[in-house]
């Protein structure tokens, strides 16, 4: 351990990767999403009616927390141009003679064009517009029914909205996107950092001692000896982000820390095995790093947090099951959101034992490289 510290002091890049870089990355990600809930998305209004009722509808849109009317446009062409460069995310066209048509109950059609290129934004706008316009409709209906006389306000209300709906989000009560995205992105970054740091650690030892001095005789034991202090450091990082999310930021947490921490240890070992495999394939850290990039960079897409796992095809499911973090995130979600008992969560760890295959490969590769080096040296001595 002391010798590792001596080496680390000389390798400023690796030291940074183990210490401040992950912290900066995680804080940046959290900062991006720190607003937690999307509010005041700019939308435009094309009011062709210029009536009291159309202004009332506009106010209704502006009053929602999601939308903010940021511009009034003379015609559709202008509004559409503004939407193409994301000045506004949607525009609502209120037709000519809007008020007259309502009085004559001709059911005027209010058309909303919203930007669905950005799916999250598109969905939010869609539901906000539907809600605001439904409120507007219900208000008009109530007034109309009441003005007909012979009804109470309550009956008028139920005439306007015969079926009301109540939506209850379970487990992420205020549909806080920060919690849901950040708590998945951070483990993904953690996985990347473990795999690449393992490669850098192995490369550093290889550079310093050479394969022979470092790993001859009982290579597995020596390798474990080299890597153990780092595994402890990664575990510390893992615990740190859990403490930050669920104790300091006080995000809701239904399960037990112990179970998640056990899962983290499995993840760390799996990631280190994969990092080792990438390095010992060629002993060239640059090539190892390229493999690591190909393997870990898209893992967030496969975790099933944004796009559900059940809707992925078989090939995607197979790739997903190769990534340590996707097994980890299942356990994290099962604990944090559902508070499943630990035993059921641990059952999700079974696939992790599959990493014994790359581990065996790793050992075989080390033996091969050692043998090659020995015979090389033998040749030199003969010469």
């Amino acid at each position, binding site marked *: 351990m002391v010798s590792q510290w001596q080496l680390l002091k000389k390798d400023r*890049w690796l030291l940074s*990767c183990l210490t401040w870089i992950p912290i900066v990355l995680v804080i*940046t*990600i959290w900062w*991006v999403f720190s*607003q937690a809930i*999307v*509010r005041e998305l700019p939308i435009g209004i094309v009011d062709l009616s210029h009536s009291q009722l159309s202004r009332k509808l506009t106010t209704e849109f502006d009053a929602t927390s999601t939308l903010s009317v940021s511009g009034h446009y003379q015609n559709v062409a202008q509004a559409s141009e503004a939407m*193409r*460069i*994301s000045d506004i995310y949607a525009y609502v066209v209120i037709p000519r003679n809007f008020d007259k048509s309502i009085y004559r*109950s001709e*059911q005027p059609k*209010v058309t*909303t064009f*919203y*930007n669905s*290129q950005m*799916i*999250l934004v*598109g*969905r939010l706008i*869609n*539901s906000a517009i539907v809600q605001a*316009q439904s409120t507007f*409709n219900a208000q*008009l209906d109530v007034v109309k029914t009441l003005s007909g006389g012979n009804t109470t306000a309550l009956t008028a*209300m*139920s*005439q306007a909205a015969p*079926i*009301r*709906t*109540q*939506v209850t989000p*379970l*487990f992420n009560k205020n*549909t806080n996107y920060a919690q*849901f995205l950040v708590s998945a992105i951070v483990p993904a*970054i953690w996985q990347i*950092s473990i795999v*690449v740091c393992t490669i*850098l650690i192995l490369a550093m030892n290889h550079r310093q001692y050479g394969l022979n001095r470092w790993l001859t005789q009982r290579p597995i034991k020596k390798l474990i000896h080299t890597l153990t202090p780092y595994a402890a450091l990664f575990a510390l990082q893992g615990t740190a982000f859990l403490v930050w999310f669920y104790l300091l930021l006080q995000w809701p947490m239904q399960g037990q820390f112990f179970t998640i921490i056990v899962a983290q240890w499995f993840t760390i070992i799996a990631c280190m095995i994969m990092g080792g495999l990438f390095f010992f394939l060629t002993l060239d*850290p*640059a*090539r190892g*790093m*390229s493999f690591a*990039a*190909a393997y870990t*960079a*898209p893992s967030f897409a*496969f975790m099933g947090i*944004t796009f*559900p796992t059940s*809707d*992925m*095809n078989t090939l*995607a499911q197979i*790739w997903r099951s190769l990534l340590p973090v996707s097994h980890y995130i299942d356990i994290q979600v099962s604990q944090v959101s559902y508070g499943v008992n630990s035993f059921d969560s641990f059952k999700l760890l079974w696939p992790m034992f599959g990493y014994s295959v790359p581990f065996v490969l790793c050992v075989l590769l080390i033996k091969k490289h050692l043998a090659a080096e020995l015979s090389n040296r033998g040749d030199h001595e003969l010469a």
Partner: protein
Amino acid sequence: MNWLKLLIEELKSIFSNPVVVLTVFGGVVFYSFLYPLPYSQQTPREQTLSVVNLDKSKTSYQLERMVDATPQVKVTRRDTSIEEAKQAFLNQQVSGILVIPVNFYKDIQLGKSTTLAYAGDASYFLVYGTLVEGLAQAGGTLAAKTKVARLIVDGKPLEYASQHYTPTEQNLKPTFNPRMGYIDYVVPAVFVLILQQTMVIASGMMLGTQKHYRGYWSQLSSLQLILLRTLVLVGIYYFLSMYYFGASFAMHGVNTIGDPFELLTLLLPFLLSACFIGLWLGAITPRRELVTLVVLLSSMPLIFSAGFIWPVESIPQPVVWLSSLFPSTPAIQGFLALNQMGAEWRQIAPQWTLLWVQAGIWFLIAWYQVEKSKTEQ
């Protein structure tokens, strides 16, 4: 050495560098298949739902069928109590619950309003959104039907009733990505980032490999070396970009409504900046694998601050400023505007200008660093 000879030497050196070949050609092609893989179904469909029907009237069964008929939702269970449904949900047998209250039918007939309750797991926002959308659709249809039925009971003809049941009609049009497909959402933006990141690795890795040896590059001045490398790599990346924006987009069915000439023009400052960043990284890092390391670690912050996942308006201003130091941010915005949203060239002038400013600044930084690392040797 004349320029033609140098070009050939440079090409040889690129193609004989296994790491560069692996990253540039292997990486770009591999990602073009791997990245869209999880999203091949485009939208989550048929999310499983448990119905707790406490009413058991004809109308409530009709509602169940209407829910089941929406593409978003599939009724896979019927539970007799909310408790039971909740247990099924916790065992992950269903992803949502719909409760039809007691006296649902009676209340509608009596002209009282009645409340349907939906519950879904909001930790998976796409599943949640899909479920709520499907349920809201079915609920809305039934509400409209009820109002129409009441008007008919009041003695209005059906023709009149079906056109007068609500004061104003809603008509929502998803624009630019009408099928709300996930591939159409992720691929056009992420591919721009992949082009940038692999380009940075390639140009950084070349410099990082060569600076420990002597060769044709040792006789060149820093400026000549930068010029030569940029010329060759940008040339190669023009072909790779055409593969991405052409064949690959077509294969995944992504819109390509931009004018090809405009896309190629926008690529120039983008690729130049990426190449200069790579040269700078190659010069400051003591070992070449560190170039890949920096690129890999920067990917996630870059993608999430580019403004297509989380709206720019909701990202803190300092993060927005930081992210506009790198070409991927204006490039993603520019390419999305041109190719996905059909913006005109003059509309992306801010992005175009920013990219050229970046190219200029990154060029100066790269030049300074390459010169410095040359004198250090």
